[in-house]
């Protein structure tokens, strides 16, 4: 799977997704719970905004000095005996990893959850080398077993499936015979893939934050699969987006504290693991070989653009968990591995407007996401910026551009505007019948699908406003007439 998860057009995707009652209920329920947990954790600290400001400061400093910190990181990884590959493109990253697979003649790879490896479409590359790849995070495993169903949430990827659906998938694909009890299914998966960790030649992980001062990478997880994937196979490959770095362990403290609270509402997740290089010479477990792949894949262009702030993102999904648009359409509607507000900003930047031009419109600009972001990314401003950019680049639909041009033309001249409003006021009652137009096109058609147009009274707002004092049926008219009458009596 690469970043793009669907070829169906955006509006069609939304229509299909919105028919899925379970998904909608489940997303709403999940949002409630995750939003509440995050809020409770933030409130408990009492000075959440100070934490956020620290987080923003750290992330901005790193972005401004990214070359320095990446250089320092690579020096320190090298000192521990680890290898570093700087990949400018997804292809360079996958080529490097493919070479390792070939060189080791690897037959099995275990992966822990990593968005960046999804972004570069790593699994397909591994598989074309006759090498099995097992996604070991439970949510990712469910999706992989279900013929690589796309994820719908960056933290809880199988959020759109209910336990019965998951039981069915397990029964069909991996011979599960038990009930739909989540605990029973989880234990089954534990037993079912434990041998894979032991047999795997290579473990592949992402990286929540690399630590420049020591050449370490940190993984923030719950299930224990990342620990297994980094402890048992002989080779460990970590792939990181180039911006996911902190100067020292002191900043790691702040960032991990923000991440865990924002993602799951806890002070820390079950496991925060810091891996430094390959195992030491006398260690009995841990990978003998460590590779760190640092990926640009469009990030340096973002850094140089007006969208730079998005690179502060720490992938906590707090914005997703608060977004009303996401709540209605669900994660798969976005057609990208990144959904919700972060997806609406990031997908067009990393994947281009050709594939993701609709996503900035999956937003009501309510700004709820700005308020919850732990590193204060002005997400809704960036979404609006995408829309502006697309207008300037003339990527928006022709009909929309013509309508806006016509509006601008009329609006620029008071005379023309008044005249067109008067004409509109007269024509509207003749064509609108029972709240509908005879021909429904464009935005009007979408609007009237669920609502009725108001029944016009043949007058424009401006002419009503100008005459309102003389209108004996309007409240203003009645009040003013009374005041006038009282005055004349006195």
């Amino acid at each position, binding site marked *: 799977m690469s970043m793009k998860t669907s070829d169906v057009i955006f509006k069609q995707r939304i229509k299909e997704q919105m028919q899925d009652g379970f998904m909608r209920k489940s997303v709403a329920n999940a949002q409630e719970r995750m939003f509440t947990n995050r809020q409770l954790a933030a409130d408990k600290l009492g000075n959440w905004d100070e934490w956020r400001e620290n987080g923003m400061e750290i992330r901005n400093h790193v972005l401004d000095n990214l070359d320095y910190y990446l250089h320092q990181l690579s020096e320190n990884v090298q000192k521990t005996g680890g290898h570093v590959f700087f990949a400018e493109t997804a292809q360079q990253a996958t080529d490097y990893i493919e070479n390792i697979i070939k060189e080791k003649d690897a037959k099995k790879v275990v992966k822990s959850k990593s968005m960046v490896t999804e972004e570069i479409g790593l699994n397909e590359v591994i598989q074309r080398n006759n090498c099995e790849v097992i996604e070991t995070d439970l949510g990712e495993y469910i999706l992989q077993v279900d013929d690589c169903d796309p994820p719908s949430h960056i933290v809880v990827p199988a959020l759109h499936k209910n336990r019965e659906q998951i039981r069915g998938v397990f029964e069909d694909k991996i011979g599960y015979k038990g009930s739909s009890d989540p605990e029973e299914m989880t234990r089954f998966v534990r037993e079912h893939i434990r041998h894979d960790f032991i047999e795997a030649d290579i473990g592949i992980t992402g990286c929540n934050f690399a630590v420049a001062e020591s050449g370490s990478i940190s993984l923030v997880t719950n299930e224990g699969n990342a620990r297994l994937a980094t402890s048992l196979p002989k080779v460990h490959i970590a792939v990181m987006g180039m911006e996911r770095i902190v100067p020292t362990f002191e900043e790691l403290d702040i960032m991990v504290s923000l991440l865990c609270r924002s993602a799951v509402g806890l002070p820390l997740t079950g496991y925060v693991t810091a891996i430094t290089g390959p195992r030491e010479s006398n260690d009995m477990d841990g990978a003998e070989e460590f590779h760190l792949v*640092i990926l640009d894949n469009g990030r340096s262009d973002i850094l140089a653009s007006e969208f730079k702030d998005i690179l502060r993102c720490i992938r906590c999904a707090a914005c997703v968990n608060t977004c009303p648009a996401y709540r209605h359409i669900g994660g798969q509607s976005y057609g990208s591995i990144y959904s919700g507000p972060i997806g609406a900003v990031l997908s067009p930047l990393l994947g281009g407007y050709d594939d993701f031009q609709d996503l900035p419109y999956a937003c009501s600009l309510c700004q709820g996401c700005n308020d919850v972001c732990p590193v204060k990314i002005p997400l809704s401003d960036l979404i609006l910026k995408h829309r502006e950019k697309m207008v300037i680049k003339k990527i928006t639909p022709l009909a929309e551009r013509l309508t806006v041009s016509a509006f601008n033309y009329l609006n620029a001249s008071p005379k023309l505007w008044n005249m067109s409003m008067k004409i509109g006021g007269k024509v509207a009652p003749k064509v609108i019948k029972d709240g509908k137009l005879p021909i429904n096109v464009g935005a009007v058609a979408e609007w009237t699908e669920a609502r009725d147009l108001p029944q016009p009274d043949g007058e424009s707002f401006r002419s009503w406003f100008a005459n309102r004092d003389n209108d004996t049926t309007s409240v203003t008219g009645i009040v003013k007439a009374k005041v006038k009458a009282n005055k004349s009596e006195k």
Partner: protein
Amino acid sequence: MQGKIHNRDTFLGSLAKKLGRELNTQGVERPSLPHRPHHDVMADFNQQQLADVFLEYTKNNLGSLGVSCNKDELHETLTSICTGFNAGKIVVSGDRRLAELQVTNHLKLQFGDVYTWDTDQAHDINIKQAEQAKVGIVFAEQALAESGTMVLHSAATHGRSVSLLPETSVFLIPQSKIVPRMTQATKRLHDKAQAGERLPSCVNFISGPSSTADIELIKVIGVHGPIHAAYVVIADM
């Protein structure tokens, strides 16, 4: 042995260009943070208070067993924990602090089948022993009161697998080593790094047994890592 760095010059050169300046690999100072809320957490707590918060959090939020005992009660405590978890085979970290506390010797007498992580044995043998064990016993470097977390540093004698492969993890921590939060634990790693020391290849912050909420957001304890966790605070250590 030093590792290899590939493609760095081109990559960083082009990155610097995008940043609108020359490549800079020296002399950057970290900014001091605008706020210090992380230093205020439980700043005036004594060790007993930290231990209370730690055990309370462990019990209420992590679904783990948390107990406090003195050194002379440790053997008895471990016996009852291992019995409670129906320990068959037990694997004990090769940590000298556990040896000094006579943990392995005691458990051998009580349960018989006890393996100590052994650097003289092959990798596969150690892994196999840990894989077969029901209970793994480790000694933690620090514990974090705020999040009920045990901090483990890997070493030749402290295999990562001891707290990973068995169904139950038992952590021992001296009360004097409990700190308020991650701030104090990361400071220790920061100081090491600044002193030019190589960090342990794996540092783990472990809060309870493994868990997931990937199916309908229902929390299930016990996924790929341990299913149970027990924390033993040694009060007079």
